[in-house]
Structure formats: C-alpha cells, structure tokens
C-alpha cells in the first residue's frame, strides 16, 4: 500500500488534533491566570480553591481525569460528548500546570515594582494588570511554550475516549490495514511537524511579550 494513500485519513485526524490543541490551550490559559492569580489572592477562600484545583489536577494523571470526565460523570447525570470531555480535561490539566507558571512569574517580579506602585497609590488591581502582569508575561513565555507542546502531545490521549483525532485515526488505520510501520511513522512525523509550527509561533509570542514588558527596546 502506498504511503500517500494513508495520508488523507491521518490529515483529517491531524486537523481534529490541531483544533483540540488550540481550544484546550485557550481554555488552559484562562484557567492558568485565574488559578495563578487566585493563589496569591488576599482572600483565603480564593487561595484555597485555587490551591485545591492545582493540587488535584497536577497530582493525578491526565488520562485518569479524561476517563473520569467521560465515564464517571454520566453516572451522576452529566453526560459529556468526547469533544467536550476531551477539551475540558485537557484545559483543566494544562491550566493547573500553567497556574504554577503564572504564580511563579508573578512572584518573580521585583517587589520594588509593587512598592513603587503603592507609593503612587495605584490600586492593587491596577498594579497587578498594568505593572506586574506585563513584566511577568516575559517570564511566563518559555515555560508556556513547553506547556503548549506538552498539550499537543497530551491531546493524543483523547483518542482513548473515542475522539477521532490523529492518534485515533492512526489506531483505526492500523486495525484496518495492518500497515503499522508507515502509519505510525507518518503519525509521528505529523505530530513533530505540528510541534515545530507551535515552536515557531511561540517564538513570535515571546518576542511580543519581551517588547510589552520593556525588556527589549520598542523602536
């Protein structure tokens, strides 16, 4: 069988993988900021909630989380489609790791910046968003880049809750054709290619972040 004949099905899967990765990265970014800021909150309730979320989703395994969302939740009356369970699981998982990145980067900004903001009587919220966050963003970018690649790789696990992504298509094809070597080689190469695209994209985002933080001259 020609390797080219395998490509259409795999590419269809790759498209699903790309969408799942993008969606869960956006969801994860949102959760990262919410929880990463939450653990530094003045309010104990927020700190506690954010801490619990991070601990649970970093402390257990992604596949356990996906199975739990997909197989266990219906029993208490919440049935999620594979797409919803997959994107939700990936977002929750990557968000917990991202929250640690956000927390660490916020903490790494020189305390003198907060003191100067206080001396100017800027509100805590304004200080966070306009002073601390733009500077912390630079610190976040390299680890975020790693997390996005991690997320792409992790997305392959949604095939195990029957979402038709690249890994799923590869497994299907393997079952049908038994052409294991070409199928799996192509699949690995496709994942690698997507990872390279993400790396290049992250390079641009990083440069942008360096500029807004004042680490790099703007003009």
């Amino acid at each position, binding site marked *: 069988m020609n390797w080219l004949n395998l490509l259409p099905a795999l590419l269809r899967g790759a498209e699903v993988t790309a969408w799942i990765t993008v969606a869960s990265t956006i969801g994860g970014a949102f959760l990262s900021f919410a929880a990463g800021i939450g653990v530094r909150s003045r309010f104990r309730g927020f700190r506690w909630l954010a801490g619990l979320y991070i601990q649970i989703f970093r402390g*257990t395994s992604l596949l356990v989380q996906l199975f739990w969302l997909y197989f266990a939740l219906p*029993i208490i009356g919440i049935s999620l489609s594979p797409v919803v369970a997959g994107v939700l699981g990936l977002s929750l998982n990557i968000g917990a790791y991202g929250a640690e990145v956000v927390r660490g980067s916020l903490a790494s900004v020189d305390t003198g910046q907060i003191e100067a903001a206080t001396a100017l009587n800027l509100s805590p919220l304004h200080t966070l968003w306009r002073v601390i966050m733009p500077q912390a963003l630079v610190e976040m970018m390299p680890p975020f880049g790693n997390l996005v690649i991690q997320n792409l790789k992790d*997305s392959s696990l949604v095939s195990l809750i029957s979402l038709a992504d690249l890994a799923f298509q*590869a497994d299907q094809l393997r079952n049908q054709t038994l052409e*294991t*070597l070409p199928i*799996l080689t192509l699949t690995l190469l496709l994942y690698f290619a997507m990872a390279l695209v993400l790396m290049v994209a992250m390079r641009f985002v990083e440069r942008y972040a360096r500029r807004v933080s004042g680490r790099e001259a703007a003009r």
Partner: protein
Amino acid sequence: MLFGIHWNLASQWSFALSITPILLIGMKVTVEATVFGFLIAMSLGLVFALLRSMPLRAVSWPTAIFVEFVRDTPLLIQLYFLYYVLPNYGISLPALETGVITLGIQYSAYTSEVYRAGLEAVPFGQREAARALNLGSFRTYRDVIIPQAIPRIVPALANYLVSIIKDTPILSAITVLEMLGVGKIIGDRTFRYLIPLTLVGILFLILTVIAAWGVRFVERRMPRGGVALK
C-alpha cells in the same frame, strides 16, 4: 471478579472497599513501571547527553535531532510504534516491558537535557582551575565537574519521577493492567465507573504526593557545595 478477588455491590461503601485490593494490585504494576522506566530514562539520558556533547558532528547532530523528535512526539504513539511495529521485525516484547522501555526513551529526552544543563552550569573557571592544577580530563570530571553538577542534576531528575508516575496510565492503551486499566475494567464489568475511577484518582494523588515529598527531601539533603565521588 478480577485477579481472583470478588467485588461486593451491596452498597457504595462495600463496593469501594471490595475493589481497593484489586486496585492495589494495579498500583504495584504502576510503581514497577515507574521505577524501571525511571532507571532506563536516567541511564539512556546520560548516554544521549554524552553523545550530544561529542565533538564529532556525525554523532552529536543525529543524537540532537533524535532527542528533539522523541521529546516532541506523544508517548502514546511511541508506545504503539514499539508495540505494533517491532514484532514485524522479530522483536516481540510483552506489553509491560514495551511500556517501560517507551517511558524510559521518552523521559531520556528530558533527562539528557538535565545532564547537559547540569554539567554546563558548573562555572568555566572550575575547568580552568583544574587545568591550572594540571589535572587530567578524567580526574577533572571525576573530582571537580561531576561532584559540583550532582546537586543540580539529582533534584531535577527526581522531579521527572513524579511525571513518570502520571504517565503510566497511558500504558493501559496497550493492555497493561496498571491502576487505571484495572479501574476501567472494573467499571466496564459493573457499569459503575464513578467509584473505581475516583479511587484511582485518589490513589494517584497519594502516590504523587509521597513522591513529591521524597523529591523535596532529596533536594534539601543535597549538599550545596557538591558531592564527592569515592
């Protein structure tokens, strides 16, 4: 029934209680896979780090590309690759062994980076000082570089132990009966997923908390100045 142990469906609690021993059997496999995967990752990572640092480009470049490729592709597909492709070439390994080897290879991509960064972090002045003392390159490494690199390398390596624990459930995709695989089977057979999967989650939490605690212990015990090699 699984592994000769029956479950008791009388109530939620009795169900949970009766399947715990079954899950613990699965946990044994989880721990085995973690430990052996980690050992492979540590040794293979060192090999890759050394190959990458070779002055000979014909060796260092392919190694670098291979390591990058392994790092950027999913464990699941690598697992399929070793499990389904190798038998066509006469290499047939049981599922657990395949899983352990795949974990080892995937994580060697990370550990090789740890070795490289750890060795590079030793200030260059230390090498110069060793040369000034006329130490040979073997003794420079054994007595100067490696002892100083160890306090950086060991805690970073140990962190990957925790990550490996969390990746072991992927082995269930090639029929390894580790903890999650066992929990899933119980669910499939009883149509009750909530309790087994929640228990699996809790057991994983316990494992990772203990492992993370161990990592911190190792980190604290590391002498800052370096570890002498006997």
